[in-house]
């Protein structure tokens, strides 16, 4: 007999710093069901599930199990109620063996000889679902799929009837995905319920009985997957007819500023992240790269700007080959960069504002003489940057980490474009910023375009992509599923499908 026959979330709302992440969410799931939770990045899927798992408390609304209201204050409560969660980033100790990892979280692990004494239990569960896990292997020796199965065993051993999986397929190979789906179907047959957070339409269609779609923190629909097709699901996820902007005046195509040919880049885990990508960017153009995070955008941006080695292929800035040059040389050749994760890669948080205003430019004659920095000129330059790019700060003699995200980003942008480089690579430039700063930054990008510059824009925000870009490439699993002109509206309305790799143009 399962502890949970039916689980409901009723009118759940949750906000962070005044912005709601979830608003009036209702959903339910029954024993033996697989529910898909579909939505774009930032739609509030993970927040909602963290509430169910007890990591966050909802501002309002309630959770009911078998028609009874329950309170979940912490993950320990949710485990007691029979809820288990496998996070997107596995909570495993890499240097420990599988069985040590399981022992750590299992409620009934005995104090003495824990490994030997839970061994049989682990093997029993592993066999029940055909996990094929070797208990004494170290976690770092396991593939991502095997690590995920360890996480699933951890949840099942603690009696989880409801298993929440956050983006379970994002780190898996196609074979492993098949294997995972087989396991999930076995679990379903045994009366377990599963919630899968995903933005991949194919997978939702394949494995889920029902789907709940979230959009910007609200429910945009519930559906039986049997009665839906991918196109209508994609519309539900994007949630709007694609709108096109406005104050982007047509400009004649300028000179070639960037030529990327047959580029291959390897990601952090040694797997190919960018596969044979080629494209050109011209002056007076904003070239957008859309796609769900983790499909190689980061690696592509890093390879172009010199942070990550290019495995094969070439990158030309104008006529100059900049493939595998150092980031500073690439900057000197007219490619500037507004990196993602601005605090981590864009600034040195503990240094003063004026130090940060000349990063990558400190070696130029105007800022240094021999081994000495010319602080007089540096500060003058900083003041003019602050004025031109509307950085709000009471002084330039402060550590830059004390500024708000929007002001930090304005300074970074100013630093990168004040020299009018032919190409600006901007990765998620407005991510996490308020409306005002976002609008300002977008205006600045359009201004670059007007003044004869080119911008390579990486963004997950489709509004931003549509508003700014002349051409849009959609990236999926390291490849372009299409490069579209902003005038091809018919095709652009299928961008959700292109992001999911379901169609290619």
């Amino acid at each position, binding site marked *: 007999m399962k502890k949970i026959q039916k689980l409901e979330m009723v009118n759940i709302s949750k906000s962070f710093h005044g912005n709601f992440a979830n608003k009036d969410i209702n959903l339910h799931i029954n024993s033996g069901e697989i529910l898909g939770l579909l939505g774009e990045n930032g739609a509030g899927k993970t927040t909602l599930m963290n509430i169910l798992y007890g990591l966050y408390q909802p501002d309002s609304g309630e959770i009911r199990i078998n028609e009874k209201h329950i309170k979940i204050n912490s993950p320990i409560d949710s485990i007691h109620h029979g809820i288990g969660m496998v996070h997107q980033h596995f909570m495993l*100790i890499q240097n420990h063996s599988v069985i*040590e990892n399981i*022992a*750590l*979280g299992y409620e009934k692990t005995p*104090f003495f000889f*824990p490994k030997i004494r839970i061994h049989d239990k682990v093997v029993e569960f592993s066999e029940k679902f055909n996990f094929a896990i070797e208990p004494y292997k170290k976690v770092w020796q396991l593939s991502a799929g095997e690590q995920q199965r360890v996480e699933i065993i951890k949840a099942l051993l603690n009696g989880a009837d409801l298993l929440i999986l956050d983006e379970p397929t994002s780190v898996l190979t196609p074979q492993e995905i098949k294997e995972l789906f087989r396991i999930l179907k076995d679990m379903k047959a045994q009366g377990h319920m599963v919630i899968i957070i995903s933005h991949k339409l194919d997978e939702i269609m394949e494995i889920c009985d029902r789907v709940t779609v979230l959009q910007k923190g609200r429910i945009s629909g519930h559906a039986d997957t049997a009665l839906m097709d991918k196109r209508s699901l994609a519309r539900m996820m994007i949630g709007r007819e694609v709108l096109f902007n406005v104050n982007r005046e047509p400009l004649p195509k300028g000179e070639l500023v960037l030529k990327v040919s047959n580029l291959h880049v390897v990601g952090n885990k040694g797997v190919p992240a960018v596969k044979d990508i080629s494209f050109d960017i011209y002056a007076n153009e904003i070239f957008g790269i859309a796609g769900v995070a983790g499909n190689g955008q980061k690696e592509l941006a890093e390879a172009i700007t010199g942070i990550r080695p290019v495995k094969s292929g070439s990158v030309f800035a104008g006529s100059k080959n900049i493939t595998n040059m150092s980031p500073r040389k690439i900057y000197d050749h007219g490619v500037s960069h507004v990196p993602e994760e601005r605090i981590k890669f864009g600034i040195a948080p503990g240094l003063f504002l004026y130090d940060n205003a000349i990063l990558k430019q400190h070696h130029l004659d105007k800022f240094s003489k021999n081994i000495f920095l010319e602080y007089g000129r540096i500060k003058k330059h900083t003041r003019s940057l602050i004025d031109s790019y509307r950085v709000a700060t009471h002084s330039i003699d402060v550590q830059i980490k004390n500024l708000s995200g929007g002001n930090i980003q304005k300074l970074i942008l100013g630093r990168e474009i004040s020299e009018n480089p032919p190409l600006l690579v901007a990765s998620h430039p407005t991510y996490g910023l308020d409306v005002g700063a976002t609008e300002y930054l977008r205006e600045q990008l359009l201004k670059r375009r007007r003044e004869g510059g080119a911008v390579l824009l990486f963004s997950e925000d489709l509004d931003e992509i549509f508003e700014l870009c002349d051409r849009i490439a959609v990236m999926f699993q390291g490849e372009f599923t299409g490069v579209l002109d902003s005038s091809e509206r018919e095709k652009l309305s299928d961008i959700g499908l292109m992001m999911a790799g379901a169609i290619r143009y």
Partner: protein
Amino acid sequence: MEDVVISVLHRTMVAGTPLLLGTVGEVICERSGILNLGVEGVMSVGAVVAFVVTYTTGNPWLALIAAILAGMIISLIHAFASITLMANQVVSGLALTMIGLGLSGMVGKPYVGKPLAVKMNDFAIPWLSDIPFVGPLLFKQSPFFYMAILLALAAWFFLERTLAGIKVRSTGENPRATETQGVNVTLVRYICVITGGAFSAMAGAHLSTSYSKSWIEGMTAGRGWIVIALTIFALWNPGKAIFGSFLFGGVFVLQYLLQPVGISPNFLAMLPYIATLLILFGMGLRDRRRLNAPAQLGEPYKRGER
């Protein structure tokens, strides 16, 4: 000739005892993720407290308990700074060494040059000590020697064969994941740092109430630093620490033995550190993971931060 060999080996065992005690403590501490460079200071405090209490009460066992308590209390400074305040552990540990050395010098000043009337006597284990060669070597020793071996084995058993041991090691490897499994990371780390302090203080007590029976300022003579090196040399394993401690203890004895032959004692004093570096090079070249260092050693853990 056999007598000479037994005598040298016996002295090796004696010299290795405080190293083993200190190393086991440091292994437990570092396995939880906290680097404690204060061993030298805590050892010194343990030595002076044990000496003073033995001197005044005549009871070296009472002195041992007092030393352990003192070691635990002074280690709290490091625990509070590095765990609660998330301070730089290197700085805090070095400060602890300085405080411990200074404090023990001050407290011990009146006792310099006054030998103890009683000390922790060697204890011959019946029957076993009669075995030729092995008997006098291993079973006619100070109680500290027996305690060190037993505690090292117990620590190994604790870390490798109990649930609490898994929790300690997990804390040093990945505190965030450990916390999501319902473990109180802060508490685990406090307990481990304080336990490490207790072991270091025991090592100090051995020096002043068993090894010699007098107090001299600076009598720990760098043993605390050898402990730090030994912790790495033993690859954070209390079992291997037994081997390493007596090996390094042997080097201590050799310093005196080889001096007449013309080998500088200064050179021999460097050996433990050279050996540790070689281990680091060798293991580092092969595969970092084989080094077994706790992944989050020295990193403060901030709750609820991504």
